[in-house]
């Protein structure tokens, strides 16, 4: 069941049609997704909620082009991307998709600025340009003054904000957030959600949350209920 609070009626940013996916371990085949279809629009926030192990994160990684579905199609900005070559998927991850995970997954040997600059540098910008853009992204998230701090010298909330800055560094059209507030206290959770929601509206980014937090889900434009690999 998809509940929509949408105010936008644009062409879907992301369209998923009849996705199937399974994990194979030796002779054992475990079906995880059984024909999932959904749409995400630019400027909207969508929450996928459901019990643990129902396939939410698997779907997120398929949408983020980190894995390939067994069957079905994924359209990003109208282009079918599930069967594209690896280099195209890699470029799309760099240019069009931003990831935010439950754990910030920052590289601890690098400063906040360097962490955020990584995807920008990969996009082909010079070191100086990438640092300027990274600082800009950090400032958007109120972390400009802590740009030179090493990732492990920041608080949990700050680390997650740096991870969001990294996700938006290349101005993606889609942000995929896997339990982004799962490791934060309520205040920081609220802040992180607000940041992502504001970014979605302000920069016309589609944000997809995978979450257990029903309170957070209620604030999203759309809620997708998930169980046993199916949208219910």
């Amino acid at each position, binding site marked *: 069941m998809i509940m929509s609070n949408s105010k936008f009626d644009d062409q879907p940013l992301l369209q998923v049609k009849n996705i199937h996916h399974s994990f194979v371990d030796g002779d054992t085949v475990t079906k995880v997704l059984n024909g999932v279809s959904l749409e995400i629009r630019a400027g909207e926030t969508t929450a996928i909620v459901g019990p643990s192990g129902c396939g939410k*994160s*698997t779907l997120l*990684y398929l949408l*983020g082009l*980190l*894995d390939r579905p067994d069957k079905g199609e994924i359209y990003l900005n109208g282009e079918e991307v599930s069967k594209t070559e*690896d*280099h195209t998927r*890699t*470029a*799309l*991850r*760099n*240019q069009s998709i931003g*990831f935010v*995970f*439950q*754990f910030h*997954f920052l*590289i601890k040997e690098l400063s906040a600025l360097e962490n955020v600059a*990584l*995807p920008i540098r*990969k*996009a082909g910008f010079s070191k100086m340009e990438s640092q300027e853009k990274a600082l800009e992204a950090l400032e958007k998230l109120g972390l400009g003054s802590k740009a030179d701090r090493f990732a492990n010298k920041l608080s949990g909330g700050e680390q997650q904000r740096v991870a969001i800055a*990294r996700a938006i560094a*290349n101005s993606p059209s889609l942000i995929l957030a*896997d*339990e982004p507030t799962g490791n934060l206290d309520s205040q920081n959770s609220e802040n992180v959600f607000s940041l992502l929601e504001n970014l979605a509206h302000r920069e016309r980014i589609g944000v997809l949350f995978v979450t257990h937090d029903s309170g957070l889900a209620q604030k999203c434009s759309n809620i997708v209920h998930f169980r046993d690999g199916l949208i219910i």
Partner: protein
Amino acid sequence: MSLFGIVLGIAFFVITQAQTSGFEAFFIRTILGTNGAIRISDRFQDMHGTVSSISTNGKTRFTFQSREGARYTEGIAHPTLLRKALRRFAQVTGVSEILEGNAILSGSSRSQTIEFQGISLQEHIMVSDIEDQVIRGAIDSFSFDPMGILLGHRIAQRLMIEVGDRVTLKGGTGNIQLRVAGFFETGVSQIDKNRAYIHLANAKAFLGKRFSGSVFQLSISDPDKAPEIASQIQETIGHRVISWQEREKVWLDVFKALRISSALTVSSILLLSGLGIFNVFAIMVIEKNRDIAILRSMGFKPSDASAIFLWQGAIVLVAGVFFGSLIGMLSTYGISNIPLRIRGIFSTDSFVVNWDASHYLWAIMISVIFVSIASWIPARRAARIEPARIIRETL
């Protein structure tokens, strides 16, 4: 630590190769300067070879055997004609006729059996370093004195002979009185304690071999090509022709075995360092697989992940090559100044080293192979990391 291993491995490789090849090169120089590059000795009786038939399965095949089992007569035949024939070999730069024999040399109080060589000095200078080998007396004294003799300095020491003394050569057709013109030192103790040079005419008269029994010693422009040239000369003139490589095969094989043995031993340091690098990188790939997965999620390619390890390997390699070669070079220079008295197959008062770029190239090549493999395997593993699986397992 692995970098240290690469540095040490390269340095040791260079040092050991410089030493072993240094002594080998010194030995070759000494032996070429004394016995020449090529020696033409006995004349083959069987000039045309033999044809024989082998019958197998009803089929008969013919084989030609040119020199196998060929008989020969002692010494060269028709030296003048032979010289004329040798002039057609452009690589031959000098020919010296030598008549060899054994005799008892008596000084004022002692006697010793020696091997003498009758030479024509001007010719022999063209095929040896005899001018430089005279350490007491003068080569000119020998040249101008038809009854002069040059003695190996160890003979002179043993018989307590001085330059200008009269000595007697006994044997052959009788006795001959000679005057000591000088002492020579080749560096090869076997020669220095047994050999003496007298004029060719005296040797012929002493041995009663006016027209036969002598050999030719040849110098050539490129001693490394001696086997090929010797083979060509042998086929052309029908005499037994031996290159210095064939003549000194035993010692050259000893040097070669030493060189290869030391190279293999020292390469094990490089191998261990390579294993060290492999271990470090393999652990890094395991420890950093989450970071690699995150980089992949940001749009980094598999080749970017492997490049991290290949670059690190390259940095270790470049630093190792630079410092290893530098230390190897400085150590080789230092070792060449260490006093070391050797009297045996050659004579030296310090470590002999050979400066050869190939030692560095070999050391670098072995390091490149080991470090490349040590970096490439973990790099490939890093490239094969599946980001979704790693992130899923981490959460």
